């Protein structure tokens, strides 16, 4: 057992963050090196960690704060799934952000908080106890706020206010739930579930509800999703971070932890709290898609699409059957890859062609072909068209629904796929078959720093679907995790 | 029997004066009643065999506080500052009466407990004074006294801080104009030597009999005030080094002795064989500082540009 590795992985984002804050604005080279260096080291460490975990070595670091209150970083299979995803996407997003922001103002602050935000996400993934999870969950809220308000205009500040107005009460609910639970059972360690039965059914149900409320805000579960579309006011890399790397994912990850590691599948089923959550997730899937359909701005449409897509993960987790679990977990990765591709492309359209509205997309495919191909791959994945990754998730989720004796799930998935097609296909049609108006502004994709990450993530989404059967695919990993949780 | 009758008379006067002071219609009348009240309090202390306290109450409680209040009445009148009249508050009056009754009951029913007479008596030899009150003040509970003498200084700094910025460096208080042949001037020349004598005596006697730095210092302060009112002595500038030195001399001396004790193992400890000399030294230093601080408190902040 060793404590070094988890701390090191955390430090790869934390240390650059603390250094970057003190860099003068003009030191863009040092900033870039610190960021990219940290991200690269992190990926190496994560790979090393995977090997270690495969060899059965436990990694654990602990810091005592007070009796009963300690930070525990611990690596398990679920941790790795999330950490590897966020490490890869962080690297991509950093490359993209450096190119996107160029020499704008307040970059030391931006990249400092950016790295802090990733550090918080890493900590959250590594958290071995409920309270550690909470601490990093809160840190994530706090470190994303300066990113959301980065532009310092009225819209961003309003978005920031809304974000906190949703997040802080949510985490207050989460804290109450945690302390209510722990005051009866003692500290909850994820790998070693305690006996929750000391509490009455009613208390447990209330705690579950408070939990769901707390993490549901981040996961943009209906009706707690209002902040997410507004947060589009932030720069594109921040959207990528919110929607794919960190925030929304942290919420979904929290729900998975809640069901599998805090309550356990058996107790969740016994209390009958899984089904209401699944129903809420299903409703969110449809609601998000319907709202996306009504949007006229590219980024707003993508935002509502996230609301819908993240609930697939929650749906899978809540159904708790073998296939459903796999479907939910693998969608955690797949959705991240596909959605970040879409946001990278949206940012490219905005920066390189000045396109923000859907009706401006006409004919952009010919002027920005690489970007548009990547966008198309992402969109097809979202609809669930094979062989892109999204298909695999939906397939497993559908099977899981049938397996769990909830055939309505298939209906929801089908309806959602139709809606997804309904809002993505017109975009694709405009991109490829629309005719650009004569007065369309200049468009090019001469920004390698922005294009390469988009291509990389698009390729990854495609690969994750094509090679889903391979031994090291996200699907294989998710199946491994699921096997650990199922009775 | 006669004693009780006398006590009853004093108590009656005390309560009546207090009521008059608190309830007087005019501000000036209230202060006058208050000074009278202070005198009765001092008499009460005499009746309780607490001569040190009686002296302190007469000099500080009645005398100096009275002067301060009278001065304030003058300032307020000149500034034309008023306030709405008292709101007769029957429930409040009843509540306060209730509190008095409860406290009175507490006085009557407190269990008998021996005081600290015995330990004080046992420790008195070698404490540097034969007056137990002085021993308590300057030796057994020297820390209280040290802090207390510094509280006066803190307040003086606070009062000075209220001066107009432009007046900094000037002389405290408003300049008095006195006719050189007037009654006040006469008193001002006549009384100071006498007061000086009384003040020094009080300090000197304090180590054996009732008296001490606070009582003596107050008398000396009064002397200085009188002299300055009569125009005999002018208050020095607030920036005067000599004045500053006089203000801090006592506490610094006290603290130095205390620190020397700390090096010897007990903070504020006095070696029994040196205690008498040390107590007297501290008393003299404190008297100087207390007298200056009290006098300057009455004079108030400097108000005219230097």
């Amino acid at each position, binding site marked *: 057992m060793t404590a070094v590795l988890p701390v090191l992985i955390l430090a790869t984002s934390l240390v650059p963050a603390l250094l970057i804050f003190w860099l003068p604005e003009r030191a863009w080279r040092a900033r870039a090196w610190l960021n990219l260096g940290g991200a690269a080291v992190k990926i190496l460490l994560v790979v090393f960690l995977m090997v270690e975990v495969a060899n059965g070595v436990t990694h654990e670091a602990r*810091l*005592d704060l*007070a*009796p*009963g*209150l300690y930070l525990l970083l611990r690596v398990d299979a679920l941790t790795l799934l999330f950490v590897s995803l966020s490490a890869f996407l962080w690297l991509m997003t950093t490359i993209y952000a450096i190119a996107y922001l160029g020499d704008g*103002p*307040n970059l030391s602050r931006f990249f400092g908080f950016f790295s802090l935000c990733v550090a918080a996400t890493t900590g959250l993934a590594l958290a071995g106890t409920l309270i550690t999870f909470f*601490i990093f969950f*809160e*840190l994530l809220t*706090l470190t994303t706020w*300066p990113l959301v308000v980065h532009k*310092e205009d009225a819209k961003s*500040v309003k978005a*920031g*206010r809304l974000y*906190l107005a949703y997040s*802080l*009460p949510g985490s207050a609910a989460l804290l*109450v739930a945690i*302390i*209510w639970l*722990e005051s009866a059972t003692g500290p909850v360690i994820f790998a070693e579930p305690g006996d929750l039965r000391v509490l009455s059914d009613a208390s447990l149900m209330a705690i579950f509800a408070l939990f769901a409320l707390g993490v549901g805000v981040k996961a943009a579960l209906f009706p707690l999703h209002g902040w997410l579309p507004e947060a589009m006011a932030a720069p594109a890399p921040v959207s990528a971070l919110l929607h794919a790397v960190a925030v929304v994912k942290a919420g979904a990850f929290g729900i998975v932890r809640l069901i599998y590691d805090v309550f356990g599948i058996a107790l969740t089923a016994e209390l009958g709290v899984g089904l209401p959550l699944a129903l809420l997730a299903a409703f969110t899937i449809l609601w998000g898609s319907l709202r996306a359909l009504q949007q006229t701005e590219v980024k707003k449409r993508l935002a509502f699409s996230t609301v819908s897509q993240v609930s697939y993960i929650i749906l899978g987790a809540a159904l708790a059957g073998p296939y459903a679990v796999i479907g939910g977990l693998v969608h955690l990765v797949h959705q991240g890859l596909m959605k970040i591709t879409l946001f990278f492309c949206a940012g490219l359209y905005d920066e390189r062609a000045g396109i923000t509205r859907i009706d401006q997309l006409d004919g952009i495919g010919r002027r920005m072909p690489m970007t548009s191909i990547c966008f198309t791959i992402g969109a097809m994945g979202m609809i669930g068209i094979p062989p892109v990754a999204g298909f695999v998730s939906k397939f497993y989720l559908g099977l899981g629904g049938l397996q769990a004796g909830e055939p309505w799930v298939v209906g929801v998935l089908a309806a959602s796929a139709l809606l997804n097609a309904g809002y993505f296909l017109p975009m694709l049609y405009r991109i490829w078959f629309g005719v650009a108006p004569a007065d369309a502004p200049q468009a090019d994709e001469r920004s390698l720093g922005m294009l390469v990450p988009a291509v990389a993530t698009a390729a990854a989404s495609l690969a994750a679907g094509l090679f889903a059967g391979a031994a090291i695919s996200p699907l294989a990993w998710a199946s491994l995790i699921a096997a650990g949780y199922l009775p | 029997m006669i004693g009780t009758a006398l006590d009853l008379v004093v108590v009656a006067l005390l309560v009546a004066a207090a009521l008059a002071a608190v309830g007087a219609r005019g501000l000036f009348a209230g202060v006058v009643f208050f000074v009278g009240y202070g005198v009765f309090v001092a008499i009460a202390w005499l009746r309780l065999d607490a001569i040190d306290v009686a002296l302190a109450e007469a000099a500080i409680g009645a005398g100096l506080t009275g002067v301060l209040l009278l001065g304030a009445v003058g300032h307020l009148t000149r500034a034309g500052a008023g306030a709405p009249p008292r709101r007769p508050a029957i429930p409040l009056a009843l509540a306060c009466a209730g509190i008095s009754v409860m406290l009175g009951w*507490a006085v009557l029913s*407190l*269990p008998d*407990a*021996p*005081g600290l007479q015995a*330990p*004080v008596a046992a*420790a008195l030899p070698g404490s540097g004074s034969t007056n137990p009150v002085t021993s308590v003040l300057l030796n*057994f*509970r020297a*820390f209280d006294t040290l*802090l207390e003498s*510094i*509280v006066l*200084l*803190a*307040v003086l*700094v*606070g009062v*000075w*801080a*209220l001066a*107009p*910025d432009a007046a*900094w460096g000037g002389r405290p208080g408003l300049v008095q104009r006195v006719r050189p042949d007037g009654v006040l001037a006469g008193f001002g020349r006549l009384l100071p030597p006498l007061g000086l004598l009384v003040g020094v005596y009080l300090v000197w006697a304090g180590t054996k009999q009732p008296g001490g730095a606070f009582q003596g210092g107050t008398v000396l302060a009064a002397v200085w005030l009188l002299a300055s009112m009569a125009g005999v002595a002018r208050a020095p500038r607030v920036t005067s080094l000599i004045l*500053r*030195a006089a203000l*801090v001399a006592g*506490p*610094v001396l006290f603290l130095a002795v205390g*620190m020397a004790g*700390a090096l010897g*193992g*007990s903070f*504020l400890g006095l070696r029994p064989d040196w205690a008498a000399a040390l107590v007297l030294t501290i008393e003299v230093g404190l008297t100087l500082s207390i007298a200056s601080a009290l006098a300057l408190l009455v004079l108030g902040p400097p108000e005219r540009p230097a």
Partner: protein
Amino acid sequence: MTTLLLSLPVALPLLAALLAVAASRQAAGLAMATGFLVLGLSVWLAFEVAAAGPITIALGGWEAPLGIVLRADGLGAGFLVVSAMVMAVVLVAAQPSFEDQGQESRAGFAFWPLALLLFAGLNTAFLSRDLFNLFVALELLTLSAIALVAIEGKAGSVTAALRYMVFALLGSVLFLLGAALAYAAHATLDIGLLAQVELGWPMAAALALMTMGLAIKTALFPFHAWLPPAHAGAPAPASAMLSALVPKASFVILLRLWFDLAPELASPLLLAVLGGLGAVAVIHGSLLAIGQDRLKLIIAYSTVAQLGYLFLVFPLAGGAGGAQPWSAGAWTAASFHAFAHMLAKAAMFLAAGLFLRAVGHDRLEGLRGLARAMPIACFAFGLSAISLMGLPLSGGFTAKYLLLTSAFASGQWGWGLVLVAGGLLAAIYLFRPLNLMFSKEGAAASLTPVPRWEQVLPLLLALAAVLLGLFSAGPFAFLQIGRPGAAAEGLLP
């Protein structure tokens, strides 16, 4: 050595104050040196206490009941260290505003002795075991504080100082009456000796009076009206001392009264009343803070709310509950909360002072765009806000966690809800200024520049508040040293 270690934290500020009066040209340097010297000594003392347990000295060699005893236990030494940290930084921060160049000025003369005397009074209050000596120490502290409130000499601050004075006089006379009653009944004023004797109704009455007096001085609801205008009206370094430090002295004495002197007299009703007033203070103070449109008033009203939290310790750890396993957590949480508040609130007032200097006024609107112009000070403000809201990782969070846990573990979840609500309300009133700092539109075009080193000072304090949350195991154990009736470790049954 122990004699020096215990007496110097009191004696040095006293001496420095006296010298500052005599030689005011050197006052600033003297004060700053004293701040760091006392900080060093306090840390040393804390290490001694950690190694050897509580240290007691009898002043003048006279043991109680005749003499006055000073005692450094975990609680006292802990408060000593944290307040010295705050004081050292605040005194440095005050130098640009109050050091006289050339000719002596009024404020330049008065500030340093008053600050040092406040320091001495504070340290005495943390160490002394004698009720009357505590009274004198509180007077030194309060009168210096009042003088500092009025130091700007404006009508508003003089009014605030007078209001403070009215409350303070009442508070001190109540405390004195209580101490007199205690002496009358038991012929001693020493807390340790009083804790050993059987106490009857006279002591209960004495405690009631002293508690009321101390509650007034701690600005517990409904005696809080004096605090916000007084703290907001003083110059920033003075505000930092007033808000961060001064109310803690009376609170520590309250802790000593009810946990050390007479835990057996703490009836459930009394504990509930104290806790209830604290809870009302949390909500009421926060709501008032939300309604303010001046930064310093927001910070000052926040102090009313934050002091309210401290009183939740009474129902959670007081009386018969003192033997329960969760009481260690609650009792320690109160100190943690006080520490975190001391550091964060001082940082916030210092930052507010810099904003005020840069903008020229402290209306909230002036904060627009400051995140760009004064990033370090804004960062310090943000970090302190995190601690005040009780968000992780910070000293405020550890305190809130411990209090919440003992509230739930003891089944008194109502107090827990107050904590949560208070945190959310704090978020509302603290994010208003933060939001403005991040608003570019309408930002003032010209600002008075503030040197970087001055902005670093509040950051140091804010970082300390945050680090208290990260390294809280050591302080937690330290606070248990000499804790009266320390029963079980841990938080849970």
